């Protein structure tokens, strides 16, 4: 019948460039080229005056500022204070969220009593809360930590509750037949089973916590990254402003990496998170 006029080339082996480097590695290097190129162009543009240094300082200038602040200890102080507020808020909000989530997850009665109220509070927009928080707690540390805790509480609460709810009842039956005691049931079945959901909650909580912190640090304060940013604004120190933004970005990336690490640690058994499949 029809002649085979062209032949297909099958790509069975991993594609390799002429020099023998695998495609995956090549693409990884490629992904850094654009940012690197941008930084170089930016530096050149700033140095040659194409961009006014007030508008967008050169990367080298930002780096210089960072080193200065690091050297005189200021960077460490502000960073430390911000992180402390974030961690405190995370721990407090996270614990309460976890506890409430577990309680409501297990007890339909608790759910009936508590869930609706919690959802109502959650629905209130954050910025609307701000004035109220100031009235209650003033503008001190407590207010800031309170805001962060609130931001953390809701994602953790919801995801914990959901995680517990969707545990396979057949596994609970199995536990009953095997005769596992309460702690064993929690340790071996409930916690691992709810973990994917809980870690999702942690991810959201970290994002919300940081957002809350940025807002909280607009309140009167003499320390913290937010203060640093506001202070820089007062004195038009654009490079400091840029630095704080970059710091925020880095912390966001680190937080995400942290969660990824936790996922690998606790969820390697899950098909979606498995590192390769072996049969």
């Amino acid at each position, binding site marked *: 019948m029809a002649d085979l006029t062209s032949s297909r080339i099958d790509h069975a082996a991993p594609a390799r460039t002429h020099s023998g480097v695998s495609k995956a590695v090549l693409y990884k290097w490629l992904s850094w080229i654009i940012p690197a190129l941008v930084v170089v162009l930016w530096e050149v543009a700033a140095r040659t005056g194409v961009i006014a240094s007030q508008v967008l300082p050169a990367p080298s200038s930002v780096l210089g500022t960072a080193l200065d602040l690091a050297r005189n200890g200021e960077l460490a102080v502000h960073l430390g204070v911000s992180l402390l507020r974030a961690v405190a808020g995370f721990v407090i909000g996270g614990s309460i969220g976890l506890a409430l989530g577990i309680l409501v997850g297990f007890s339909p009665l608790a759910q009936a009593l508590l869930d609706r109220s919690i959802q109502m509070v959650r629905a209130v927009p954050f910025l609307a809360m701000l004035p109220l928080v100031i009235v209650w707690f003033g503008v001190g540390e407590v207010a800031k930590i309170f805001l962060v805790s609130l931001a953390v509480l809701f994602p953790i609460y919801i995801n914990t509750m959901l995680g517990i709810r969707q545990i396979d009842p*057949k596994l609970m*039956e199995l536990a009953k*037949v*095997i*005769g596992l005691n309460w702690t064993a049931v929690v340790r*071996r079945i409930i916690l*691992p089973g709810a*973990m994917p959901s809980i870690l999702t909650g942690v991810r959201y909580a970290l994002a919300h916590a940081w957002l809350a912190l940025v807002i909280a640090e607009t309140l009167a304060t003499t320390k913290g990254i937010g203060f640093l940013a506001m202070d820089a604004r007062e004195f038009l120190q654009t490079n400091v402003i840029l630095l704080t933004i970059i710091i925020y970005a880095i912390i966001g990336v680190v937080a995400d990496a942290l969660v990824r690490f936790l996922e690998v640690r606790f969820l390697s058994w*899950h098909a979606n998170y498995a590192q390769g499949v072996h049969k």
Partner: protein
Amino acid sequence: MNASVALSRDADIPASSENRIGDFPLAVSVRGLQRRYGARVVIDALDLDIQKGEFVALLGESGCGKTTLLRALAGLDGPDAGQIRAPERPSVVFQEHRLLPWATLWENVALGHEATVGRAGAAHALAEVGLSGREDDWPRNLSGGQAQRVALARALVRDPALLLLDEPFAALDALTRIKMHRLVKELVARHQPGVLIVTHDIGVARLLAHRLMVMQGGEVVEAGLTDQVLDDPQHPYTQTLVSSVLPV
């Protein structure tokens, strides 16, 4: 209504003279069991004895109460009336494997008995079901038949007095099912628990069971030697059941 419910669960039924039939100790004993769902009586006045080493098949259509009976014996649902004397921890193999996806195979097998069974005991049990060397593997890497074998290993690992099987092969393909039949036969011959299998598959009963009980509407309508009940059924329902299946 006289509802006396006595559910005694010991580690095993104590070996005394009233707990034996002939030379063989009882694995489970039931008298006058009743189970209700709301107002509907699902099982009524059921008596049952199974000795250690005895393999009993419970045959019947869906809804006849056989799974309800098994669950009552397993301690999953309490009796509404009657007495059950059963081991505290019967071993159960369900239709689904019910392995913990976040635990390795050996952890699954040793679940609840880590102290007594340990990794070595679990590895031995896995070898018995033909999965030696895979103690550290994960349930997600197993086929349906393999996962069910791990469930079997888990059930047998601590040499139970009573083994309950709830249609354990129903979800497997025909070829795997045949292999599983033979595996169960070997394991039971070796460990000698009392066994109750709930099934709607006559072939399984014929192959594995010493004794057959036919259930209809929550009642045992016929019981006896397996091949006698299947080849010479007395009860109308048994006759219908048997004749509706192609002869093996």
